[in-house]
């Protein structure tokens, strides 16, 4: 490794599913098999740095890891190979240790899932390959797999200056196609693999707690996980009670009313004034042509499609809505879960256009 001062920041793999809280040390070595350290310094891409300073993200592009069993390492190796194909000059490493035990597999699986979910695979390949190059040289330098990790950690502790920090960060984002999220031990913190994993996990949790803090009203001043959780629980409970209360209220009020769908919808929509897509949506209040025996109930104008605003919805006349006994709905099969059965049986259930529509948005 001719580059002493360069950042060796593949020091830890971030375990996503911390069921066991263990991290395989071998994972690191697998990682470095395909990489070289040299060209890192020559990389000049700008990357976006993750918010957490403790992370360096290095996520190999995983084509798909939906293979079961022990193919995870296979795919890991394939991903490395795949990305390395771009660099013709660099020799690919022979193979990855494919015969690892389940422990590694489990960790790999956890990491891969995380990598897929968090990062898009839309990063350029060349920087990835350079990064890979860097790793393999480093690996070759060190020789034995067990010493790799510790030596890397030592190196990176040495190398952790602010200047190198920037470079690392730029590289990290570029290699975000990789599977692992590599965590750097901060200065003065334990570099034990367990504690690093713990720290990663804690970071994730605190990030989620911050999100929740924004969601739950009146939680700005509350610091501390326990109190936040109390607030969250209270809020969820209060929301659920509100749903309960409002549903009782609607039940009490409703029988005498034929409520105005259009009115409600316009209110609802005007509360959230957005672009004019609203009219095109969800209105299988319209009829299904093949089932013409269900005619005449609700007719929505075809002009609604091009209606830029909510006025189009208002074309649904109330009178047509009231005889709702014969609503042909793509949601009927779903509504059966909700509404008492006997009523649904009376409706000619339209089973053709079942999920074709609903799935679009979801």
């Amino acid at each position: 490794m001719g580059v002493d001062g360069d950042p060796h920041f593949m020091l830890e793999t971030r375990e996503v599913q911390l069921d066991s809280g263990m991290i395989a040390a071998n994972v690191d070595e697998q990682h470095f098999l395909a990489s070289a350290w040299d060209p890192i310094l020559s990389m000049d891409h700008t990357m976006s740095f993750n918010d957490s300073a403790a992370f360096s993200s290095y996520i190999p592009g995983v084509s798909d890891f939906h293979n079961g069993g022990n193919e995870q390492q296979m795919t890991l190796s394939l991903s490395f190979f795949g990305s390395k194909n771009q660099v013709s000059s660099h020799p690919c490493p022979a193979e990855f240790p494919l015969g690892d035990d389940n422990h590694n597999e489990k960790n790999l699986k956890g990491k891969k899932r995380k990598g897929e979910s968090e990062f898009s695979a839309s990063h350029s390949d060349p920087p990835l390959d350079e990064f890979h190059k860097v790793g393999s040289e480093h690996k070759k330098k060190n020789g034995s797999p067990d010493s790799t990790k510790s030596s890397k950690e030592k190196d990176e502790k040495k190398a952790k200056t602010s200047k190198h920090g920037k470079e690392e960060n730029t590289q990290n984002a570029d290699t975000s196609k990789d599977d692992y999220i590599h965590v750097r031990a901060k200065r003065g913190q334990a570099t034990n693999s367990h504690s690093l994993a713990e720290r990663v996990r804690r970071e994730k949790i605190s990030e989620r707690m911050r999100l929740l803090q924004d969601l739950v009203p009146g939680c700005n001043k509350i610091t501390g996980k326990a109190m936040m959780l109390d607030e969250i629980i209270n809020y969820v409970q209060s929301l659920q009670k509100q749903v309960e209360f409002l549903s009782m209220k609607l039940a009490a009020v409703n029988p005498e009313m034929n409520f105005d769908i259009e009115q409600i919808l316009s209110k609802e929509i005007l509360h959230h004034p957005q672009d004019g897509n609203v009219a095109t949506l969800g209105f299988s209040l319209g009829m299904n042509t093949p089932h013409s025996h269900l005619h005449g109930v609700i007719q929505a104008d075809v002009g609604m499609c091009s209606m830029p605003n909510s006025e189009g919805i208002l074309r649904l006349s109330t009178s047509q809505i009231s005889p709702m006994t014969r609503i042909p709905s793509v949601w009927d099969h779903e509504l059966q879960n909700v509404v008492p059965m006997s009523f649904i049986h009376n409706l000619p259930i339209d089973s053709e256009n079942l999920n074709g529509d609903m799935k679009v948005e979801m």
Partner: protein
Amino acid sequence: MHFFKCSQGNPNPSPNPNSTNLNVSKTMQTSYFLRAVALINMAMPASSTMQRGRSIRRAAYASMARAAGSRRVWSRAVLRRLQHRRERLIRRPSGAGRRFVIRRRIRVSTPREPTQADVLRRLVPGGKAMDFCNLLEETANYIQCLSTQVSLMQTVADSISG
């Protein structure tokens, strides 16, 4: 007669695609809920308010879960729960059959006091099978959808009684 599909491809280019999606799902949620309530009123006008209220509550959760989609653990759990309820009712519409079906919950006593995470798991549907980190994420999404649903129901109630 025209048949409308829920469509995201629209002729009008939206300036903010995220808001479009939000609006789409909110509209879907609204229409689904309203339809369900209308059906409930149509189907069981003579039932007690309690029963209708419970049906409306189920409708609320169903519309929430539908709007959230299958990507969320909690929405899948909600829909699964409704589905099972449905199947149970179909198989045993009468109460006579019930005596053969006693769901025995084998109680595994947890000696420790229920922690906050446990309470949260109980509150959020589908929360039992998630680790704490994902639980928090699901809770966030669940809170969002719940508040949407509450505001929707409030609007409905206001427009009816107002």
